[in-house]
């Protein structure tokens, strides 16, 4: 147990290091690029309006303070971290005076729900089918599944979501293609609300699952087809152990471990994919928030979504990492 705690602590330090480096990188992206968010916001606010120079100067001062842009680069950096530590991402300009954190808090559950559900389904199904395909290599049906998985795997999230949108939105319109529920509906909890949300989540989820499943399928198939040549599997077969049991407890269990590591390593990419898919289907999650933020020139919101995404993904990677040794008894701790 003590060894495990040390392991968790080391992972936690790494988690903090990832956060520090990534959030620092975000700081430099926003501060070393030529465009000044204050001037951009001013131009947007003052377009088509004749404000006196004093008012504009006052606005400029307020915005500079609001964005934490006064003082030297170093002072700004220190203040940036102070704000992060307080969890203060400033007010959103497009939904003034709602703070960015509350907007993110409203959007994040939609993204998390979509991401977790579709990733769990894609990971489980991909590994199960891939394992079967690696073990029963003569099966026609599994070979067809392999070809399908290989065909779907290289297609980027956006393109697949877009193709499904066209298919089910224009060619064969049977599913809702936009939003997370029927517009203007009563949002108090009821069975019809649950069904409505489920119906709206089918297309985004299916598109995420279709992209995700191929990678897990191909990876698992390769792992299993290498494992079945191992001596211990041959021995079990000669010893008359039931084939299903060999696959379940001798082969798949061993092969699952690299796939869990793979899951931790791919979470960042899966998150990006979810955000992109949300945008295609107008799903009210982080992706829509991000794009709306850009389109309305809302500096705090865009920065906030980027920072919160990094935090969320890093935390999820940390969780998967510390669960790993609990699942794999072979990992030596310490």
């Amino acid at each position, binding site marked *: 147990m003590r060894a495990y705690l040390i392991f968790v602590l080391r992972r936690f330090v790494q988690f903090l290091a990832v956060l520090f480096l990534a959030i620092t990188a975000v700081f430099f992206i926003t501060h070393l690029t030529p465009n000044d968010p204050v001037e951009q916001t001013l131009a947007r606010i003052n377009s088509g309006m004749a404000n006196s120079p004093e008012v504009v100067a006052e606005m400029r001062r307020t915005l500079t303070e609001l964005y934490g842009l006064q003082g030297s680069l170093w002072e700004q950096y220190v203040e940036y971290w102070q704000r992060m530590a307080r969890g203060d991402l400033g007010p959103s300009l497009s939904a003034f005076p709602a703070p960015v954190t509350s907007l993110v808090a409203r959007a994040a559950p939609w993204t998390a729900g979509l991401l977790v559900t579709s990733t769990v389904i894609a990971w489980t199904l991909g590994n199960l089918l891939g394992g079967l395909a690696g073990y029963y290599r003569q099966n026609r049906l599994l070979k067809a599944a392999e070809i399908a998985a290989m065909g779907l795997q290289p297609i980027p999230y956006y393109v697949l979501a877009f193709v499904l949108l*066209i298919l089910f939105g224009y060619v064969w319109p049977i599913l809702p293609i936009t939003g997370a529920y029927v517009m203007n509906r009563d949002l108090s909890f009821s069975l019809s609300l649950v069904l409505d949300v489920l119906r709206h989540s089918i297309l985004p989820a299916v598109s995420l699952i279709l992209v995700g499943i191929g990678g897990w399928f191909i990876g698992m198939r390769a792992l299993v087809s290498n494992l079945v040549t191992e001596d211990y599997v041959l021995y079990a077969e000669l010893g008359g152990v039931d084939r299903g049991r060999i696959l379940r407890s001798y082969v798949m269990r061993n092969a699952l471990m690299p796939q869990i590591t793979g899951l931790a*390593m791919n979470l960042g990419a899966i998150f990006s994919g979810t955000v*992109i898919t949300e945008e295609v289907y107008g799903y009210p999650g982080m992706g829509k928030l991000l794009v709306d933020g850009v389109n309305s020139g809302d500096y705090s919101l865009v920065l906030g979504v980027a920072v919160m995404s990094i935090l969320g993904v890093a935390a999820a990677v940390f969780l998967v990492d510390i669960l790993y040794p609990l699942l794999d008894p072979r990992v030596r701790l310490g």
Partner: protein
Amino acid sequence: MWSVARDLFRYNRGFAAGACILAVLIVYALLSLLSPYDPADAFVVPPDIPPGADFWLGTNSRGQDMFWILSVALRNTMLFGLAVAIVSRAVALTVGMMAGYFGGWVDRALTMLIDTFIAIPMFPVLVLFYFMIKDNLSWASLVLVMALLGWAYDARLIRSIALSLRTREFTRHAQFAGMGTRDILFEEHLPYVLPVLFSTTMNNMIWSIGLEITLAVLGFSDIDTPTIGTTIYWANQHSAMTTGTWWWILFPVAAVLLVFIGLFLLSVGMNEYIDPRSRLDRLRA
């Protein structure tokens, strides 16, 4: 390297198919050099004509011939992917080989850096970058940023190969013979890394082209340069789906799917060469 590609082409049907698809696409993209119209010009042909004998792929609502616009778009998109791949390979190779060869604290520090970049969700960061640059966003700066974000996964792979080469007999011989570190890395180790480098190049191109399309379709890139992404962007701007100009959407999507399938088949073929066990697997099946 060439003989490997030739053998793969001859004996691996997937690799051969991928190479043929890409060859056709490259020829089509090169045709753009002969284009009778400047891709920046609009209304050079009658708008909204369906595919037919006069205009093979139809014309769009901006009065451009889809055949020529798509050719330019394909060229720009593939060049973009290639440029990102080359720059990010340079970073991945340097970091991965140094981490694997030096080991110790260098390895730990570089691995930490790699893990950080793997964990960063690229899309929000790229959107933030676009937001900060807006109209100043040039083709080259987008290439640079994507390359600086997209090297980590492959650096990890290269590191694991370099790690195993470090303790091999020939490395020690080279060291004792007084070979410099740079020479060992480039002359002794690089040939072992090359096949993996090639297959990661394909995957990296798939990744960067996919992200470029995503950004462009949302309007978050230089929308005046024709790429597959901006072509779909303009089609969406003119509501091509609802006005019935389906060829404006279908052909770019089909072209880019072919690019992905071609690149993917090449990378799978190369992986089979790298991992001989999967070659045996094919023989058995």
